[in-house]
Each structure stands twice: as structure tokens, then as C-alpha cells.
């Protein structure tokens, strides 16, 4: 509520999903369907080296032997993987623009509408942005300034061309190509995404961020992000996602890999606002994402913060493998499901090294007919002397048609581990509502205020600009949940 109320109301009045517009742009899209030829064509189009194609084909062959996971608490019609187009790029991208000045103005306009004015951003804000439109990256800002610090921030396609030794060294080492059904699919067909490399001892001079947007009909988005933080380096990375309003469901199956070496720190924040479908549950994005961070080095730290308000179905467990001694993993999450949205999300903290610590704070809000599950795993291996974990997961229910579920798995194999887990489920308190209303605050505002308070622990982990955006999103997503 630190934002001006008028602002929010203007947004609400506009339309519930303000990123739902479609950009009319000529696109070059591969016909729907998936086989080895499609993968070869995709790889050829991107001018990839043989090792990259081999990686894709290996993943594809593994994927063919795998089955879609069914253990999550979500229900959706079977996905026709042959009905999806695995590559779509704006035509004007064919001859890659050398700089943002050469980017199709229509594309730039799209991002301005989304509140990410690439040009102004470059001029004003201290945030470097990589923008991914359907299957390709359309541009990265602040490249030069970052290069001066030795930081590499570019699209992953570019990294395959320009920094093959780094990509080859790390790609698939955190999320192996056969890790799970969606990760295997992504490994076979990923089209673009971001690559970040922070050299030894460097504190990245600015926030890095990527905006993902799905525009074309019938396309899936399979982005791949790889962040490597060398010894003693620090980086904060933000990710935002939107998609147009369409009646059919669209698949988004991303893979994100983070590697933190000794004393390195990676902070990864997400505001996920994919199109959630309409009030009847038609359309919306299937967000099936594998995100994993590897605290490979001693005293390294990886922190995930996510605000999930979009998508029809979410299946996502940003995780940390705490391999290095004294390494630290964190997961802060706010997930909101309204109307017919379903989310099965949480984290995995795998304690391998000594004195490893992890913190999990999950806040789930369910309204309308939304179904929300927290699914978490804390595993302490034999080698993890003195591991510590604290988990808190709270659910808030708005209305009697929604559901909130908690599935916290704990596996302990070392007697020196100390773990605490606390969870509560409740509805918004009538007393709190009455108190706020008796001070003159309208019911809907009071609800949104209380919900924001409920989420505070997570919001405070977000970089400033994102925290404001997250609060707005929450308020818009809760529109109509009361009364």
C-alpha cells in the first residue's frame, strides 16, 4: 500500500490482466510438432556448434522414454506435445540487430506497454535488462558498462556463440538433461534465455533482469537461464514474465541453473505474471519450471524469492543443493491462486556440506476456486554435520470454494541436524477486517492490506521496484475475491 491508491484503482479499472494484449508482428514460426528434424532445424537456425546439438538430441531421446509427472496436486487436460510450435521469432530478428537502436519499434513499444521501456531504462535506471520475446532474446541493455566490470550478461544463444567454453562447462551440471520430464523437454528444445557470468571477486555493479514474454499463438516458451558466480562474487538477478490473453493454454517449461562457487552469492527474484486464464478457467499458461541452484563452494549463498500470481497451472520448486561447507540456501515465496488457478510450488533444500543452513518462508493465498499446494523437501544427508533448517508455511483462504494444501517432506540422515517446521492455515480474521473498516478503509482495500501484511516477510526480500510491482499484482489478482 505504499503505492498511491489512485494508481491501483486505475489499473484495476483498466482490466484485470493488464499485460494481456497481443503484439501484431510478423513472426517466423516453425510448424507445430517435435522430432529430431525439428531439433536439428532449430539448432541450425541458431547456428549452434555440434556439442550443443548433441546435448539437445541426447535430451530429446531421454525425454521420449519419460512420463509426465502426476504426483503434483494439479489437474489439467493432457498436453499435445505435437501441437506446439517449438520456435517462434519476430521476423525482424533474423538479421540480429547490432544494438537496441535497430530493434523493431513495435517490439520496443510492447515492452514500454509492459512498463519496461528498454531505451529509457538504459538511460535512467540502474538495471540491466535482457528481454526475451517468444523464443528469442531481443536485446540486452547496459552490456558495455557490465563488460567493464568483467560481467557477461547476454542471451544464452549469444553465449553459446561467444563463450562456448563457459556454457559447455556449466550447462546441464545443475539440472541434468534427464532430470525430469519438463527439464528433458527444455534441454532438447530451449530457444533462448539469459546467461550471466560474474568473475572472481566482482560485485555486479547493477541489478540484472530478464523479462520474458510469450506472444505467438500455439508456441511454447522454453527458456534456459544459466548464472555462474565465481569465487567471492555477488549478483542480484530479477525475472519478470507476461503473456497475452488467449483462450487456449500455452506451455512454458523453463530451466534455470545457478552455480555459486566459494563465498559467492546469488539472489534470484521472480515476479511471475503469466496469463492466468479467465474467470471460468479458460486459457492461461502452464508454468512447468525447473529451477535449481548449486552452492558448490564453501560459504556460498543462493537465495530464491518468488511472487507467483499468474499462470493457470504452476509446477515449480526452486531448489538449493548445499554442497559447500557453511553454504546457505533461502526460499521466500508468495503464491496466489484465484478463480480456477492451480499452483503446486515449493522448494527443495538438499544439505550435503557441513554447517549448511536453509530457510524457507512460504505464503500461500487462495481465493475463488483456486487450489494451492506448498510442496517442499528438506533432505539432510549423512555428510551434512550440523545442518539447520527453518521452515514456515502459512496459508490464507478467501472464500469457501478454494483449497490450501501443505506437503512438507523431511528426510534426515544425520543426527546432528536441527529442523523446525511451522505451518498454519486460516481465513482472514473478521476482527482485523472490522478494525480496518472502522477506520474508514473499504472492505476490498482492507483485504488487500491484510494480505500484503501477510506477505511482508517475503516482499522485504525483493528489490525495491519489484516489491512495489508485486504488491500491485497481488491487489489486481485479488480483484473480486471478496463479497
Amino acid at each position, binding site marked *: 500500500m505504499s503505492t498511491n491508491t489512485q494508481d491501483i484503482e486505475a489499473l484495476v479499472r483498466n482490466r484485470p490482466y493488464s499485460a494481456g494484449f497481443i503484439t501484431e508482428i510478423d513472426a517466423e514460426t516453425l510448424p507445430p510438432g517435435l522430432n529430431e528434424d525439428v531439433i536439428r532445424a532449430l539448432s541450425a537456425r541458431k547456428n549452434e556448434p555440434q556439442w550443443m546439438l548433441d546435448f539437445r538430441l541426447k535430451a530429446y531421446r531421454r525425454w521420449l522414454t519419460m512420463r509426465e509427472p502426476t504426483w503434483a496436486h494439479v489437474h489439467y487436460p493432457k498436453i499435445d506435445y505435437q501441437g506446439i510450435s517449438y520456435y517462434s521469432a519476430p521476423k525482424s530478428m533474423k538479421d540480429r540487430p547490432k544494438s537496441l537502436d535497430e530493434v523493431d519499434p513495435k517490439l520496443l513499444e510492447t515492452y514500454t506497454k509492459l512498463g519496461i521501456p528498454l531505451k529509457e531504462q538504459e538511460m535512467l535506471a540502474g538495471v540491466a535488462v535482457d528481454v526475451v520475446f517468444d523464443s528469442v532474446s531481443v536485446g540486452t541493455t547496459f552490456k558495455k558498462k557490465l563488460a567493464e566490470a568483467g560481467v557477461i550478461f547476454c542471451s544464452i544463444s549469444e553465449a553459446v556463440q561467444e563463450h562456448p567454453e563457459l556454457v559447455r562447462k556449466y550447462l546441464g551440471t545443475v539440472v541434468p538433461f534427464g532430470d525430469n520430464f519438463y527439464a528433458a523437454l527444455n534441454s532438447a528444445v530451449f530457444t533462448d534465455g539469459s546467461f550471466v557470468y560474474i568473475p572472481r571477486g566482482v560485485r555486479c555493479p547493477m541489478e540484472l533482469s530478464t523479462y520474458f514474454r510469450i506472444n505467438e499463438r500455439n508456441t511454447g516458451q522454453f527458456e534456459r537461464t544459466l548464472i555462474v558466480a565465481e569465487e567471492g562474487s555477488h549478483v542480484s538477478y530479477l525475472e519478470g514474465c507476461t503473456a497475452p490473453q488467449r483462450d487456449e493454454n500455452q506451455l512454458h517449461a523453463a530451466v534455470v541453473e545457478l552455480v555459486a562457487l566459494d563465498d559467492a552469492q546469488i539472489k534470484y527474484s521472480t515476479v511471475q505474471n503469466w496469463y492466468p486464464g479467465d474467470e471460468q478457467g479458460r486459457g492461461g499458461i502452464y508454468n512447468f519450471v525447473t529451477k535449481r541452484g548449486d552452492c558448490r563452494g564453501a560459504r556460498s549463498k543462493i537465495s530464491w524469492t518468488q511472487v507467483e500470481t499468474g499462470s493457470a497451472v504452476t509446477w515449480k520448486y526452486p531448489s538449493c543443493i548445499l554442497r559447500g561447507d557453511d553454504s546457505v540456501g533461502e526460499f521466500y515465496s508468495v503464491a496466489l491462486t484465484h478463480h480456477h488457478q492451480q499452483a503446486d510450488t515449493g522448494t527443495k533444500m538438499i544439505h550435503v556440506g557441513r554447517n549448511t543452513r536453509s530457510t524457507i518462508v512460504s505464503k500461500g493465498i487462495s481465493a475463488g476456486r483456486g487450489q494451492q499446494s506448498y510442496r517442499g523437501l528438506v533432505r539432510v544427508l549423512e555428510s551434512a554435520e550440523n545442518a539447520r533448517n527453518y521452515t514456515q508455511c502459512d*496459508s490464507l483462504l478467501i472464500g469457501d470454494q478454494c483449497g*490450501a*494444501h501443505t506437503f512438507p517432506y523431511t528426510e*534426515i*540422515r544425520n543426527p546432528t541436524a536441527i529442523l523446525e517446521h511451522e505451518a498454519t492455515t486460516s481465513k482472514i480474521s473478521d476482527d482485523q477486517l472490522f478494525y480496518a473498516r472502522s477506520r474508514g478503509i473499504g472492505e476490498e482495500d482492507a483485504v488487500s492490506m491484510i494480505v500484503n501484511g501477510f506477505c511482508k516477510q517475503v516482499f522485504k526480500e525483493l528489490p525495491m521496484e519489484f516489491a512495489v510491482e508485486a504488491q500491485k499484482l497481488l491487489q489486481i489478482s485479488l480483484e473480486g475475491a471478496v463479497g
Partner: protein
Amino acid sequence: MLNRDAYESAFARFSETLPAATIAPRRAALQRFLDTGLPGKGLEAWKYTDLSPLGAEAVAAPSVRGRPETPLPQFPGMHTRCWVNGRAPDVDAQAGPVETPSGEHAHDGLANLNAAFALPGIDLLLDDGASLDAPLHALFVTEPQGDGEMVHLRHRIVLGEGASATVVVHELGRGDAPRWSTHLLDIELARGARLRLVRLQDESAGTRGWFEARAAVHGDASLDMTQVDLGGGIVRNDWRPRLLGPGADVVLRGLMAPVGRTHVDSQFLTEHAAAHGRSRQWFRGLAWDRAQGIFNGKVVVRPGAQKTDSEQRIANLLLSPRARINAKPELEIYADDVKCAHGATFGRLDPAALFYLRSRGVDEATARALLIHGFAEAVLQHLEPAELRKAVVARLLERIGNEIDPEVLA
């Protein structure tokens, strides 16, 4: 691979003791078991307990009744009935007709195995307003004569409106031979009925045991259950109470204390199907040596079960470097006006408390035993009468190889 021949021939032998008319449904259950096999990998509910490899082992029909060789435990004020190798001395050894699994359990491998071979166990029916004059101590002693012997029992406790009873289900296994034991217990509590149930599982190290209790708890009825797992080899317990009317109250308590290579997997699934229900799950786990303890507590609140009040508390201690504990306190909630909370902790004996005791002159072994007992007491204090509690504590200390006098703890 399931050793189909062994199960077929065991059934052929067993069916010789059955009245001809009751064989067909049991045979059908056996067939369904052979089709599904033993539960394990691929089933989320059996994630940590994979029984399927055991299907390859030989099995045999239960041997005919024997006489227990050693003195049997008895508790003052209780009425003890004893089953030996699955057969009650005072009941005709012939097993009668059996209800075969249906509905959600139709393809439940173990339930079908149980149905094929089930022998009559506890059958307690109380009329409206009736009560048992003394707690029933149902003792199941097993002394197998050969490898792979199976004892499968079917129990029923039905209490009429306002009826009340206390039942102690006590399984005592002797000998080291590998063997199977399954118990399927159906409980129905009419309005206002009260059942106190204690289950002591003290099976032999060779026992692969499955115990499932399903309970229908109607309005204002109360189920108060305390389970202590002391023994067994591979043990799985499923408690599935359903709260079906307003004012229903279900308390499930559990203590597991596996040692050696014992594997204990307890699952509490409490389902609130009506408004104004109250449920509690209190569970404590201790694991030694290379033992593995699993606890999965789940509370489901169905649509319309408003004003549900539920709480789960789980605490675990790992006492050896190779011991393992897996636990999962789950909530599945489809109603908004509810108060549901759960908490879980994992840790070891508090070094500060140990030091404190030792600084007062208590030797380390005793200090450890005192702290362990203190931890277990949260569950054990609900065992009555005191003689029963003392017997359980003594057995617990014996299992963990501690020589301290249980009287010290009394």
C-alpha cells in the same frame, strides 16, 4: 517379481480349512492381490517403504494353533484374550466368510492379501449405551514354525450410540524367522460413543507387518488412540479416521522407537468430512542404529467441514549417526473457516541438558535414558493403567540396551 506359486499354494493349503462356500470371494481377493502385488515404488503413499521386492520370497499358510511357550504379559484390571499364530483358543479355528475390499480399497494389494487369508480377530459390538466393564487386552502372540508364515487378521469394533470401551491391541512376536502379519481393523462409532484404543506393536525382527485401521466417527463420538511401535522388522501402520458428524473428536498419538535395522512407517490420515470436528495428531519418533523411521501425518478438511479445529505436532530425535527419519505433516484443506496448524521438529538430545544432568553426578548412559524417556513421555503418559506404562517403558529401555531400572523413571 511376485512369487505367485508360493501364494497360490499357500492359499490352496489354507482353503482346505475353509467352509466351501466362503472360498470363492477369498480366491477372487487373492487374484486381485496377484494382479497388483505388494505396494512400493511408484505409489506416493509408499514412497519410503518399498515392499515390492519382498514379493519374491516364499510364503506359507499360518501353521495350526500352538501353545505359547513363554509366559504371557497380563495387566491388572484388564480382561486378556490371546490369539496364538492368529487363532483364538476359544474360537473355532475355522475362518468364516470375509468381506473383500471394495471402493477405494478394491485394488489395494495388502487389503486383498488380508482378505484372502483373513482369520477372525477382535469382534466387539456394543449396543447403544453399553460399556465394557473392563478394558479388553487383545494379545496376538506369534511363534512361527517355519519361514514365510503368514498371519492375517480381520477386526471389528462397533460401538452404538453413547457406548464406551477401552481396547488394547497388543502384538507380540517371537523367533527370528521372516514372516508376514497383517491386521485390518474397522471401527464404527455411533453418536456420542467413546473408544479408547491402545496399540502396542512388539513384533519379532523378522516380521513384515501391516496394520490398517479405518474409523467412522459420527457426531459427538470420540476416538482416542495411542500407538507405540517397539519392534518389528519392516512395519507399516495406516490410521484412517473420518469425522462424519459435528462434535466428532479424534486424537491419534504415536511413538516409534526403531532400533537395529527396523523400518517403521506410520501414516495418520485424518479426514474431516463434517463441520465442527476436532482432531489432534501427536507423534514422536526416536531412531537408533541403522533404523529408519517414517511418519506421514495428513489432515484433510473436506468442503463444508467449517469450524474444523486441527493440530499436528511431530517431534523426532535421531540417536545414531546411521539412523534415518523421514517425516511429512500434510494439510489438505477445502474449507475456509478452519483452524489448522502443524509443526515438526528434528534434532538430537540436547547437549546442554545432558551436560547439566552429568554435572549433577548422573552418568552419561542414565542421563541419556532420562532425556529419551522424557521425550517419549509425551506419548507414554497416556498409557493406563500404570502397569501397562511401566511394561512399555521397560521394554523400550531393554530394546535400546539400557540397563537403568525403569523404577527410576516411574
